[in-house]
């Protein structure tokens, strides 16, 4: 399926839940509403042939509101198609449905996004920190995390 048809199919199926689409030199992006996140992902997997979730990451656009974004990159191994899917989440308590039930690779990506940005993935089987230690407070890649904010686990000499 050609690229413009994928975005068109998304718009047809999801209607107004597709916030915006964007296509630049074969690089296609769709932004969907958070409540349509799981629906859009299922559609991509089941009907549009995107069998590979290549990446999932958080992003912080402080001071914009909605402040956070979750960004996914999909690949269809049979169609050789790529698609970027995004959703925008509010700053207060960012939460969105987990994709871990659809793609196993989402499991650790979502744990990382939780660890770094504090984005809650509802329905995730085991949403613990992935990289930082358990005693770490806050989420270090948030733009309002202090630039020199360090949390040593043992005493440091100065």
């Amino acid at each position, binding site marked *: 399926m050609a690229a413009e048809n994928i975005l068109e199919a998304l718009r047809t199926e999801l209607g107004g839940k597709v916030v915006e689409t964007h296509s630049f030199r074969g690089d296609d992006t769709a932004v969907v509403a958070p409540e349509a996140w799981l629906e859009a992902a299922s559609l991509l997997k089941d009907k549009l042939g995107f069998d590979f979730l290549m990446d999932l990451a958080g992003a912080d656009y402080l001071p914009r509101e909605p402040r956070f974004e979750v960004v996914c990159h999909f690949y269809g191994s049979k169609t050789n198609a790529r698609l970027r899917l995004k959703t925008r989440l509010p700053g207060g308590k960012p939460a969105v449905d987990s994709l871990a039930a659809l793609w196993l690779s989402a499991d650790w990506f979502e744990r990382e996004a939780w660890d770094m940005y504090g984005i809650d993935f509802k329905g995730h089987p085991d949403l613990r920190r992935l990289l930082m*230690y358990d005693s770490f407070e806050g989420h*270090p890649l948030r733009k309002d995390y202090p630039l020199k904010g360090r949390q040593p686990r*043992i005493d440091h*000499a*100065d």
Partner: protein
Amino acid sequence: MGLETLFGNSFLTTRLDEAINWGRKYSFFQYPFVTACCGMEFMSAWASTYDIARFGAEYPRFSPRQADVLFVVGTVNEKLAPVLKRVYDQMCEPKWVVSFGVCATSGGFYDNYATVQGIDKIIPVDIYIPGCPPRPEAVLDALVKLQEKVSKESVLDRKHGR
């Protein structure tokens, strides 16, 4: 028959410090604490082209309890810091520490939430090797400097905790 046949019935005198330090400095057992890309250059120093065996330090021990020199090779982050401290504490005296590359030495360009800004905030360091990564020649130079340092020690220093 070995070298001893050349000396016949003669004998040799030396100072205890010199004899012990001579043995120590030419037979370092390293513990390679390798965390990052510096490890590749460390392997290069080890392998045949640069041949760290010429300095008697080619033998790695993967138990800190059997090692003399702790090579901290690469970035150490806050999550890992207690592990490094524990490895150091497990080593028996006499022991020395080499900080390999800028990340181990100062955190390098990782001035962020995750990275320890130099391992000397956690454990004492004898020799620092600059470079990102250091060339093997710099590693060998550091090893020779460590040998010089060891040769100036007294066995009493460590006994009295100096």
